[in-house]
Protein backbone atom coordinates (compact mmCIF):
# COMPACT_ATOMS: atom_id res chain seq x y z
CA UNK A 1 0.00 0.00 0.00
CA UNK A 2 1.34 3.42 -0.90
CA UNK A 3 0.48 6.64 0.87
CA UNK A 4 -0.89 9.40 -1.41
CA UNK A 5 2.28 11.58 -1.28
CA UNK A 6 4.32 8.67 -2.62
CA UNK A 7 2.14 8.49 -5.73
CA UNK A 8 3.20 12.04 -6.56
CA UNK A 9 6.89 11.23 -6.27
CA UNK A 10 7.41 10.63 -9.97
CA UNK A 11 5.84 14.01 -10.78
CA UNK A 12 8.63 15.80 -9.01
CA UNK A 13 11.34 13.18 -9.54
CA UNK A 14 14.49 14.48 -11.21
CA UNK A 15 13.39 18.07 -11.72
CA UNK A 16 16.05 20.72 -12.27
CA UNK A 17 14.11 23.60 -10.79
CA UNK A 18 10.98 24.11 -8.76
CA UNK A 19 8.73 27.06 -9.62
CA UNK A 20 6.71 28.14 -6.62
CA UNK A 21 3.82 30.46 -7.42
CA UNK A 22 2.75 33.12 -4.89
CA UNK A 23 3.95 31.22 -1.81
CA UNK A 24 3.20 32.40 1.72
CA UNK A 25 6.15 33.25 3.94
CA UNK A 26 5.83 30.04 5.92
CA UNK A 27 5.58 27.93 2.77
CA UNK A 28 8.66 29.60 1.29
CA UNK A 29 10.64 28.91 4.46
CA UNK A 30 9.84 25.23 4.06
CA UNK A 31 10.64 25.15 0.38
CA UNK A 32 13.74 27.31 0.11
CA UNK A 33 16.26 24.73 1.31
CA UNK A 34 14.85 21.87 -0.75
CA UNK A 35 17.57 19.59 -2.05
CA UNK A 36 18.33 18.81 -5.67
CA UNK A 37 16.44 21.64 -7.34
CA UNK A 38 16.71 25.40 -7.66
CA UNK A 39 13.76 27.27 -6.22
CA UNK A 40 12.25 30.07 -8.29
CA UNK A 41 9.50 32.16 -6.76
CA UNK A 42 6.93 33.55 -9.19
CA UNK A 43 4.56 36.13 -7.75
CA UNK A 44 3.19 39.60 -8.30
CA UNK A 45 5.61 40.92 -5.68
CA UNK A 46 8.59 39.50 -3.85
CA UNK A 47 6.91 39.44 -0.44
CA UNK A 48 9.01 36.54 0.84
CA UNK A 49 12.37 38.04 -0.12
CA UNK A 50 13.28 35.18 -2.43
CA UNK A 51 16.70 35.11 -4.11
CA UNK A 52 15.46 34.02 -7.52
CA UNK A 53 12.29 35.86 -8.28
CA UNK A 54 10.15 36.31 -11.37
CA UNK A 55 7.61 39.09 -11.25
CA UNK A 56 4.12 38.35 -12.50
CA UNK A 57 2.77 41.60 -13.93
CA UNK A 58 -0.80 40.31 -13.99
CA UNK A 59 -2.52 37.96 -11.59
CA UNK A 60 -3.21 35.39 -14.32
CA UNK A 61 -6.33 33.48 -13.33
CA UNK A 62 -5.66 30.69 -15.77
CA UNK A 63 -2.99 28.53 -14.13
CA UNK A 64 -1.67 27.36 -17.48
CA UNK A 65 -1.04 30.95 -18.55
CA UNK A 66 0.51 31.74 -15.22
CA UNK A 67 2.90 28.80 -15.42
CA UNK A 68 3.78 29.62 -19.03
CA UNK A 69 4.55 33.19 -18.03
CA UNK A 70 6.59 32.05 -15.04
CA UNK A 71 8.67 29.75 -17.24
CA UNK A 72 9.31 32.49 -19.80
CA UNK A 73 10.30 34.84 -17.01
CA UNK A 74 12.65 32.29 -15.44
CA UNK A 75 14.12 31.62 -18.87
CA UNK A 76 14.70 35.32 -19.55
CA UNK A 77 16.22 35.82 -16.11
CA UNK A 78 18.53 32.86 -16.69
CA UNK A 79 17.16 30.88 -13.77
CA UNK A 80 16.33 27.89 -15.99
CA UNK A 81 17.63 26.68 -19.34
CA UNK A 82 16.12 25.16 -22.46
CA UNK A 83 15.33 21.51 -21.86
CA UNK A 84 15.19 21.73 -18.05
CA UNK A 85 12.57 19.63 -16.30
CA UNK A 86 10.47 21.84 -14.05
CA UNK A 87 8.19 21.20 -11.13
CA UNK A 88 5.52 23.81 -10.49
CA UNK A 89 3.65 24.34 -7.22
CA UNK A 90 0.84 26.82 -7.46
CA UNK A 91 -2.47 27.84 -5.93
CA UNK A 92 -5.38 26.67 -8.08
CA UNK A 93 -8.59 26.67 -6.03
CA UNK A 94 -7.56 28.41 -2.84
CA UNK A 95 -4.99 31.00 -1.83
CA UNK A 96 -2.41 28.46 -0.66
CA UNK A 97 -0.33 26.21 -2.88
CA UNK A 98 -2.63 23.27 -3.71
CA UNK A 99 -1.38 21.76 -6.96
CA UNK A 100 1.82 20.47 -8.50
CA UNK A 101 2.62 20.04 -12.15
CA UNK A 102 5.59 19.00 -14.22
CA UNK A 103 6.68 20.56 -17.47
CA UNK A 104 9.69 21.00 -19.67
CA UNK A 105 11.28 24.27 -20.75
CA UNK A 106 10.88 24.60 -24.49
CA UNK A 107 12.50 27.68 -25.94
CA UNK A 108 10.73 27.28 -29.28
CA UNK A 109 7.42 28.03 -27.60
CA UNK A 110 8.80 31.32 -26.37
CA UNK A 111 6.14 33.92 -27.12
CA UNK A 112 7.84 36.98 -25.73
CA UNK A 113 5.21 37.96 -23.21
CA UNK A 114 7.74 38.24 -20.41
CA UNK A 115 9.85 40.33 -22.73
CA UNK A 116 6.80 42.52 -23.32
CA UNK A 117 6.69 43.52 -19.69
CA UNK A 118 10.29 43.33 -18.57
CA UNK A 119 12.13 44.69 -21.59
CA UNK A 120 9.78 47.29 -22.97
CA UNK A 121 10.52 50.95 -22.97
CA UNK A 122 7.56 51.78 -20.77
CA UNK A 123 7.56 50.81 -17.11
CA UNK A 124 6.13 47.31 -16.41
CA UNK A 125 3.57 48.80 -14.03
CA UNK A 126 2.28 51.10 -16.77
CA UNK A 127 1.86 48.23 -19.23
CA UNK A 128 0.10 46.25 -16.53
CA UNK A 129 -2.28 49.13 -15.78
CA UNK A 130 -3.10 49.50 -19.47
CA UNK A 131 -3.77 45.76 -19.68
CA UNK A 132 -6.08 46.04 -16.72
CA UNK A 133 -7.98 48.91 -18.31
CA UNK A 134 -8.27 46.99 -21.60
CA UNK A 135 -9.41 43.84 -19.82
CA UNK A 136 -12.00 45.73 -17.80
CA UNK A 137 -13.22 47.45 -20.93
CA UNK A 138 -13.46 44.06 -22.63
CA UNK A 139 -15.46 42.58 -19.76
CA UNK A 140 -17.99 45.34 -19.38
CA UNK A 141 -17.96 47.10 -22.72
CA UNK A 142 -19.46 50.52 -23.06
CA UNK A 143 -23.05 50.50 -21.84
CA UNK A 144 -23.23 46.77 -22.45
CA UNK A 145 -22.07 46.97 -26.05
CA UNK A 146 -18.65 45.66 -27.00
CA UNK A 147 -16.11 48.37 -27.72
CA UNK A 148 -12.73 48.38 -29.33
CA UNK A 149 -9.75 50.36 -28.13
CA UNK A 150 -6.13 50.87 -29.07
CA UNK A 151 -3.49 51.93 -26.57
CA UNK A 152 0.01 52.80 -27.69
CA UNK A 153 2.33 52.71 -24.70
CA UNK A 154 5.81 54.18 -24.58
CA UNK A 155 7.98 56.19 -26.98
CA UNK A 156 5.21 58.79 -26.94
CA UNK A 157 7.23 61.55 -28.61
CA UNK A 158 7.83 59.49 -31.72
CA UNK A 159 4.29 58.10 -31.73
CA UNK A 160 2.91 61.64 -31.59
CA UNK A 161 5.05 62.56 -34.58
CA UNK A 162 3.78 59.55 -36.52
CA UNK A 163 0.14 60.31 -35.91
CA UNK A 164 -2.29 63.16 -36.27
CA UNK A 165 -5.25 64.30 -34.18
CA UNK A 166 -8.74 63.30 -35.27
CA UNK A 167 -10.31 65.85 -32.96
CA UNK A 168 -9.46 68.04 -30.00
CA UNK A 169 -7.35 66.17 -27.50
CA UNK A 170 -9.30 65.82 -24.23
CA UNK A 171 -6.05 65.15 -22.35
CA UNK A 172 -4.38 68.34 -23.51
CA UNK A 173 -2.64 70.14 -20.62
CA UNK A 174 -3.86 67.49 -18.21
CA UNK A 175 -1.73 65.31 -16.00
CA UNK A 176 -3.69 62.11 -15.97
CA UNK A 177 -1.84 58.84 -15.57
CA UNK A 178 -3.10 55.32 -16.17
CA UNK A 179 -3.66 53.72 -12.81
CA UNK A 180 -5.14 56.91 -11.35
CA UNK A 181 -8.41 56.10 -9.59
CA UNK A 182 -10.94 57.66 -11.95
CA UNK A 183 -9.06 57.13 -15.18
CA UNK A 184 -10.82 53.88 -16.16
CA UNK A 185 -14.12 55.68 -16.45
CA UNK A 186 -12.51 58.40 -18.53
CA UNK A 187 -10.87 55.96 -20.90
CA UNK A 188 -14.10 54.04 -21.18
CA UNK A 189 -15.97 57.15 -22.22
CA UNK A 190 -13.34 58.26 -24.72
CA UNK A 191 -13.04 54.77 -26.20
CA UNK A 192 -16.43 55.34 -27.80
CA UNK A 193 -14.71 57.58 -30.32
CA UNK A 194 -12.31 56.14 -32.80
CA UNK A 195 -8.58 56.60 -32.69
CA UNK A 196 -5.72 55.56 -30.46
CA UNK A 197 -4.74 56.50 -26.93
CA UNK A 198 -1.11 57.53 -26.64
CA UNK A 199 0.53 56.83 -23.29
CA UNK A 200 4.06 57.86 -22.31
CA UNK A 201 6.79 55.72 -20.71
CA UNK A 202 5.83 56.87 -17.24
CA UNK A 203 2.10 56.33 -17.81
CA UNK A 204 0.93 59.84 -18.62
CA UNK A 205 -1.99 59.83 -21.03
CA UNK A 206 -0.70 62.13 -23.72
CA UNK A 207 -3.58 62.06 -26.14
CA UNK A 208 -6.74 60.37 -27.26
CA UNK A 209 -8.27 60.38 -30.76
CA UNK A 210 -4.95 59.92 -32.54
CA UNK A 211 -4.96 58.64 -36.08
CA UNK A 212 -1.82 56.55 -36.43
CA UNK A 213 0.14 57.00 -39.63
CA UNK A 214 3.00 54.54 -39.55
CA UNK A 215 4.20 52.91 -42.70
CA UNK A 216 2.45 49.56 -42.59
CA UNK A 217 4.78 48.09 -45.16
CA UNK A 218 5.93 44.61 -44.25
CA UNK A 219 3.77 44.40 -41.14
CA UNK A 220 2.63 40.82 -40.81
CA UNK A 221 -0.28 40.18 -38.49
CA UNK A 222 -2.57 37.15 -38.47
CA UNK A 223 -5.17 37.23 -41.22
CA UNK A 224 -8.65 38.16 -40.17
CA UNK A 225 -7.72 40.99 -37.86
CA UNK A 226 -8.93 44.45 -38.77
CA UNK A 227 -7.51 47.89 -39.36
CA UNK A 228 -7.09 48.62 -35.67
CA UNK A 229 -4.78 45.66 -35.24
CA UNK A 230 -2.92 46.50 -38.42
CA UNK A 231 -2.33 50.03 -37.14
CA UNK A 232 -1.18 48.64 -33.78
CA UNK A 233 1.24 46.23 -35.40
CA UNK A 234 2.60 48.87 -37.74
CA UNK A 235 3.17 51.57 -35.11
CA UNK A 236 5.16 49.14 -32.93
CA UNK A 237 7.29 48.25 -35.93
CA UNK A 238 8.03 51.89 -36.64
CA UNK A 239 8.68 52.92 -33.02
CA UNK A 240 9.80 51.23 -29.81
CA UNK A 241 6.29 51.46 -28.40
CA UNK A 242 4.04 48.60 -27.33
CA UNK A 243 0.44 48.49 -28.55
CA UNK A 244 -2.42 46.92 -26.60
CA UNK A 245 -5.60 46.38 -28.57
CA UNK A 246 -9.08 45.44 -27.48
CA UNK A 247 -10.86 43.92 -30.41
CA UNK A 248 -14.43 45.06 -30.97
CA UNK A 249 -15.40 41.98 -32.95
CA UNK A 250 -14.08 39.09 -30.84
CA UNK A 251 -13.49 40.87 -27.54
CA UNK A 252 -9.91 39.65 -27.13
CA UNK A 253 -7.06 41.77 -25.82
CA UNK A 254 -3.92 41.53 -27.93
CA UNK A 255 -0.49 43.02 -27.44
CA UNK A 256 1.94 43.94 -30.20
CA UNK A 257 5.62 44.62 -29.96
CA UNK A 258 8.11 45.12 -32.75
CA UNK A 259 5.32 44.63 -35.28
CA UNK A 260 4.43 41.19 -33.99
CA UNK A 261 1.56 39.79 -31.99
CA UNK A 262 3.04 38.64 -28.67
CA UNK A 263 0.08 38.07 -26.40
CA UNK A 264 -3.58 37.22 -26.72
CA UNK A 265 -5.86 37.29 -23.68
CA UNK A 266 -9.54 36.66 -23.22
CA UNK A 267 -10.91 39.29 -20.79
CA UNK A 268 -13.66 36.91 -19.71
CA UNK A 269 -11.04 34.70 -18.05
CA UNK A 270 -9.90 37.36 -15.60
Amino acid at each position, binding site marked *: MARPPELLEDVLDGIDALLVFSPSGAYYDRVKDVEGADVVVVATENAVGAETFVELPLAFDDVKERIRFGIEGALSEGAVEDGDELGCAAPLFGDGVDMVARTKVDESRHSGIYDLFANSRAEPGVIRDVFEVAIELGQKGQKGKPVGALFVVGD*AGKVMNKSRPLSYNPFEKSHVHVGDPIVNVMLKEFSRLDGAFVISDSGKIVSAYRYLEPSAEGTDIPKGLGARHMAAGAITRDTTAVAIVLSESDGLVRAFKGGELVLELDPEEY
Partner: protein
Amino acid sequence: MQVDLSPVLDPDFRYVLGVATLFAGLALGYLVGRVNERLLLALGVDDAVEGTSIERMAHDVGSSTVSLVARLTSWIIYVFAVLVALEVAQLTVQDAVWYPVVGFLPSVVIAVVVLFFGVIAGDKAELFVSERLRSVKVPEMSVVPKVVKYSVLFVAALVALSQVGVAIEALLVLLLAYVAALVVFTAVATHQLLTSAAAGVYLLLRQPYGIGDRVAIGEHEGIVQEVNVFVTRVEDNGREYLLPNHLVFERGVVLVRE
Protein backbone atom coordinates in the same frame (compact mmCIF):
# COMPACT_ATOMS: atom_id res chain seq x y z
CA MET B 1 -1.89 69.29 49.87
CA GLN B 2 -2.71 71.52 52.81
CA VAL B 3 -6.18 70.34 53.81
CA ASP B 4 -8.09 72.28 56.41
CA LEU B 5 -8.80 69.75 59.12
CA SER B 6 -9.73 72.04 62.01
CA PRO B 7 -13.31 70.75 62.43
CA VAL B 8 -12.04 67.20 62.81
CA LEU B 9 -10.00 67.26 65.99
CA ASP B 10 -10.40 63.81 67.35
CA PRO B 11 -7.22 61.85 66.44
CA ASP B 12 -9.02 58.47 66.30
CA PHE B 13 -11.50 59.85 63.80
CA ARG B 14 -8.65 61.26 61.78
CA TYR B 15 -6.97 57.84 61.63
CA VAL B 16 -10.21 56.23 60.44
CA LEU B 17 -10.59 58.98 57.87
CA GLY B 18 -6.99 58.51 56.81
CA VAL B 19 -7.43 54.75 56.33
CA ALA B 20 -10.67 55.36 54.40
CA THR B 21 -8.88 57.86 52.17
CA LEU B 22 -6.10 55.34 51.60
CA PHE B 23 -8.50 52.60 50.56
CA ALA B 24 -10.54 54.96 48.39
CA GLY B 25 -7.30 56.06 46.72
CA LEU B 26 -6.19 52.45 46.16
CA ALA B 27 -9.57 51.55 44.67
CA LEU B 28 -9.54 54.67 42.49
CA GLY B 29 -6.00 53.95 41.33
CA TYR B 30 -6.90 50.40 40.40
CA LEU B 31 -10.04 51.49 38.56
CA VAL B 32 -8.27 54.28 36.67
CA GLY B 33 -5.56 51.79 35.72
CA ARG B 34 -8.12 49.34 34.32
CA VAL B 35 -10.09 52.03 32.48
CA ASN B 36 -6.84 53.43 31.10
CA GLU B 37 -5.86 49.99 29.81
CA ARG B 38 -9.23 49.51 28.10
CA LEU B 39 -8.99 53.00 26.64
CA LEU B 40 -5.49 52.43 25.27
CA LEU B 41 -6.55 49.11 23.76
CA ALA B 42 -9.62 50.72 22.21
CA LEU B 43 -7.44 53.46 20.72
CA GLY B 44 -5.31 50.77 19.09
CA VAL B 45 -2.16 51.79 20.98
CA ASP B 46 -1.09 48.13 21.21
CA ASP B 47 -0.99 47.92 17.40
CA ALA B 48 0.73 51.28 17.09
CA VAL B 49 3.63 50.31 19.36
CA GLU B 50 4.03 46.88 17.76
CA GLY B 51 7.70 46.21 17.01
CA THR B 52 9.09 49.22 18.92
CA SER B 53 11.86 48.72 21.46
CA ILE B 54 9.63 49.65 24.42
CA GLU B 55 7.18 46.95 23.43
CA ARG B 56 10.02 44.43 23.12
CA MET B 57 11.40 45.49 26.51
CA ALA B 58 7.94 45.17 28.07
CA HIS B 59 7.56 41.79 26.40
CA ASP B 60 10.84 40.61 27.93
CA VAL B 61 9.59 41.35 31.44
CA GLY B 62 6.37 39.51 30.62
CA SER B 63 4.17 42.52 30.13
CA SER B 64 3.10 44.89 27.37
CA THR B 65 3.38 48.60 26.79
CA VAL B 66 -0.32 49.14 27.36
CA SER B 67 -0.37 47.38 30.73
CA LEU B 68 2.84 49.12 31.75
CA VAL B 69 1.29 52.54 31.10
CA ALA B 70 -1.87 51.49 32.92
CA ARG B 71 0.22 50.21 35.83
CA LEU B 72 2.13 53.50 35.91
CA THR B 73 -1.04 55.59 36.19
CA SER B 74 -2.28 53.29 38.95
CA TRP B 75 0.96 53.68 40.90
CA ILE B 76 0.96 57.46 40.61
CA ILE B 77 -2.52 57.51 42.13
CA TYR B 78 -1.44 55.02 44.83
CA VAL B 79 1.44 57.26 45.85
CA PHE B 80 -0.83 60.29 45.97
CA ALA B 81 -3.41 58.35 47.98
CA VAL B 82 -0.80 57.35 50.55
CA LEU B 83 0.42 60.93 50.86
CA VAL B 84 -3.09 62.34 51.17
CA ALA B 85 -3.96 59.66 53.74
CA LEU B 86 -0.91 60.55 55.83
CA GLU B 87 -1.85 64.20 55.59
CA VAL B 88 -5.43 63.50 56.65
CA ALA B 89 -4.27 61.41 59.61
CA GLN B 90 -1.86 64.23 60.48
CA LEU B 91 0.93 61.73 60.83
CA THR B 92 3.25 64.08 59.00
CA VAL B 93 5.69 66.40 60.56
CA GLN B 94 5.64 70.03 59.43
CA ASP B 95 8.00 70.60 56.48
CA ALA B 96 8.31 66.89 55.92
CA VAL B 97 10.86 65.77 53.37
CA TRP B 98 8.29 64.74 50.81
CA TYR B 99 6.64 68.13 50.33
CA PRO B 100 9.27 69.26 47.80
CA VAL B 101 9.30 65.72 46.40
CA VAL B 102 5.54 65.76 45.92
CA GLY B 103 5.69 69.20 44.36
CA PHE B 104 8.26 67.82 41.99
CA LEU B 105 6.22 64.74 41.08
CA PRO B 106 4.08 66.21 38.23
CA SER B 107 7.22 67.32 36.38
CA VAL B 108 8.72 63.86 36.78
CA VAL B 109 5.54 62.24 35.50
CA ILE B 110 5.47 64.55 32.49
CA ALA B 111 9.16 63.88 31.84
CA VAL B 112 8.58 60.12 31.95
CA VAL B 113 5.58 60.41 29.63
CA VAL B 114 7.53 62.61 27.21
CA LEU B 115 10.43 60.17 27.21
CA PHE B 116 8.06 57.28 26.71
CA PHE B 117 6.36 58.89 23.71
CA GLY B 118 9.75 60.02 22.43
CA VAL B 119 11.02 56.44 22.38
CA ILE B 120 7.87 55.22 20.63
CA ALA B 121 7.95 58.09 18.12
CA GLY B 122 11.65 57.45 17.48
CA ASP B 123 11.03 53.76 16.83
CA LYS B 124 8.10 54.53 14.60
CA ALA B 125 10.13 57.09 12.64
CA GLU B 126 12.94 54.55 12.24
CA LEU B 127 10.52 51.89 10.97
CA PHE B 128 8.86 54.34 8.58
CA VAL B 129 12.13 55.61 7.11
CA SER B 130 13.63 52.14 6.74
CA GLU B 131 10.44 50.95 5.04
CA ARG B 132 10.65 53.87 2.64
CA LEU B 133 14.31 53.13 1.91
CA ARG B 134 13.77 49.41 1.47
CA SER B 135 13.88 49.63 -2.32
CA VAL B 136 17.22 51.45 -2.12
CA LYS B 137 19.58 48.54 -1.79
CA VAL B 138 22.64 50.45 -0.57
CA PRO B 139 24.01 49.13 2.73
CA GLU B 140 25.12 52.62 3.84
CA MET B 141 21.48 53.69 3.75
CA SER B 142 20.81 51.68 6.91
CA VAL B 143 22.43 54.52 8.86
CA VAL B 144 19.70 57.00 7.88
CA PRO B 145 16.84 55.40 9.90
CA LYS B 146 19.16 55.22 12.91
CA VAL B 147 20.03 58.93 12.61
CA VAL B 148 16.33 59.78 12.42
CA LYS B 149 15.57 57.64 15.45
CA TYR B 150 18.30 59.13 17.61
CA SER B 151 17.40 62.68 16.54
CA VAL B 152 13.85 62.13 17.76
CA LEU B 153 15.15 60.54 20.96
CA PHE B 154 17.54 63.44 21.52
CA VAL B 155 14.77 66.01 21.26
CA ALA B 156 12.52 63.93 23.56
CA ALA B 157 15.32 63.63 26.11
CA LEU B 158 15.90 67.39 25.96
CA VAL B 159 12.22 68.11 26.63
CA ALA B 160 12.17 65.56 29.47
CA LEU B 161 15.32 66.98 31.07
CA SER B 162 14.04 70.55 30.84
CA GLN B 163 10.85 69.34 32.57
CA VAL B 164 12.78 68.15 35.62
CA GLY B 165 14.86 71.32 35.59
CA VAL B 166 18.25 70.03 34.53
CA ALA B 167 20.49 72.59 32.86
CA ILE B 168 20.38 71.71 29.16
CA GLU B 169 21.84 74.81 27.51
CA ALA B 170 24.88 72.94 26.19
CA LEU B 171 22.70 70.20 24.71
CA LEU B 172 20.44 72.85 23.20
CA VAL B 173 23.42 74.46 21.47
CA LEU B 174 24.34 71.01 20.15
CA LEU B 175 20.82 70.52 18.81
CA LEU B 176 20.80 73.93 17.14
CA ALA B 177 24.18 73.28 15.55
CA TYR B 178 22.91 69.92 14.30
CA VAL B 179 19.71 71.36 12.84
CA ALA B 180 21.59 74.28 11.26
CA ALA B 181 24.09 71.89 9.69
CA LEU B 182 21.25 69.73 8.38
CA VAL B 183 19.46 72.71 6.85
CA VAL B 184 22.62 74.17 5.29
CA PHE B 185 23.79 70.85 3.87
CA THR B 186 20.36 70.04 2.48
CA ALA B 187 20.08 73.47 0.90
CA VAL B 188 23.55 73.25 -0.66
CA ALA B 189 23.24 69.63 -1.76
CA THR B 190 19.77 69.89 -3.24
CA HIS B 191 20.12 73.39 -4.63
CA GLN B 192 19.97 72.21 -8.25
CA LEU B 193 17.13 69.83 -7.52
CA LEU B 194 15.16 72.66 -5.92
CA THR B 195 15.68 75.07 -8.82
CA SER B 196 14.82 72.26 -11.24
CA ALA B 197 11.66 71.49 -9.31
CA ALA B 198 10.63 75.14 -9.31
CA ALA B 199 11.17 75.30 -13.07
CA GLY B 200 9.42 71.95 -13.44
CA VAL B 201 6.31 73.23 -11.70
CA TYR B 202 6.16 76.10 -14.20
CA LEU B 203 6.69 73.71 -17.12
CA LEU B 204 3.95 71.39 -15.92
CA LEU B 205 1.48 74.19 -15.26
CA ARG B 206 2.05 76.25 -18.40
CA GLN B 207 3.25 73.50 -20.72
CA PRO B 208 5.24 75.68 -23.13
CA TYR B 209 6.19 72.43 -24.85
CA GLY B 210 4.66 68.97 -24.64
CA ILE B 211 5.36 65.36 -25.49
CA GLY B 212 6.03 65.03 -29.22
CA ASP B 213 7.34 68.59 -29.75
CA ARG B 214 10.78 69.08 -31.22
CA VAL B 215 12.82 71.34 -28.94
CA ALA B 216 16.40 72.45 -28.42
CA ILE B 217 17.53 72.96 -24.83
CA GLY B 218 21.14 74.07 -24.58
CA GLU B 219 23.05 72.13 -27.19
CA HIS B 220 20.65 69.19 -27.22
CA GLU B 221 17.89 69.01 -29.79
CA GLY B 222 15.28 66.31 -30.06
CA ILE B 223 11.73 65.18 -29.50
CA VAL B 224 10.28 65.58 -26.01
CA GLN B 225 9.46 62.16 -24.59
CA GLU B 226 8.56 63.05 -21.04
CA VAL B 227 8.34 66.09 -18.77
CA ASN B 228 8.33 65.65 -15.03
CA VAL B 229 9.07 67.88 -12.07
CA PHE B 230 12.85 67.47 -12.20
CA VAL B 231 13.86 66.57 -15.75
CA THR B 232 12.79 66.78 -19.36
CA ARG B 233 13.60 63.73 -21.46
CA VAL B 234 14.54 64.64 -24.99
CA GLU B 235 15.29 61.97 -27.58
CA ASP B 236 17.19 62.31 -30.79
CA ASN B 237 18.49 59.55 -33.05
CA GLY B 238 18.26 56.85 -30.41
CA ARG B 239 19.87 59.05 -27.74
CA GLU B 240 17.69 60.09 -24.85
CA TYR B 241 18.93 63.15 -22.95
CA LEU B 242 17.79 63.76 -19.39
CA LEU B 243 17.94 67.51 -19.09
CA PRO B 244 17.41 69.08 -15.66
CA ASN B 245 14.60 71.59 -15.82
CA HIS B 246 16.68 74.47 -14.48
CA LEU B 247 18.55 74.36 -17.80
CA VAL B 248 15.32 75.39 -19.50
CA PHE B 249 15.41 78.64 -17.56
CA GLU B 250 19.16 79.17 -17.65
CA ARG B 251 19.70 78.43 -21.32
CA GLY B 252 16.21 78.96 -22.69
CA VAL B 253 14.41 76.56 -24.94
CA VAL B 254 13.91 76.65 -28.68
CA LEU B 255 10.77 75.15 -30.10
CA VAL B 256 11.71 73.77 -33.49
CA ARG B 257 8.96 73.97 -36.11
CA GLU B 258 9.81 72.61 -39.53
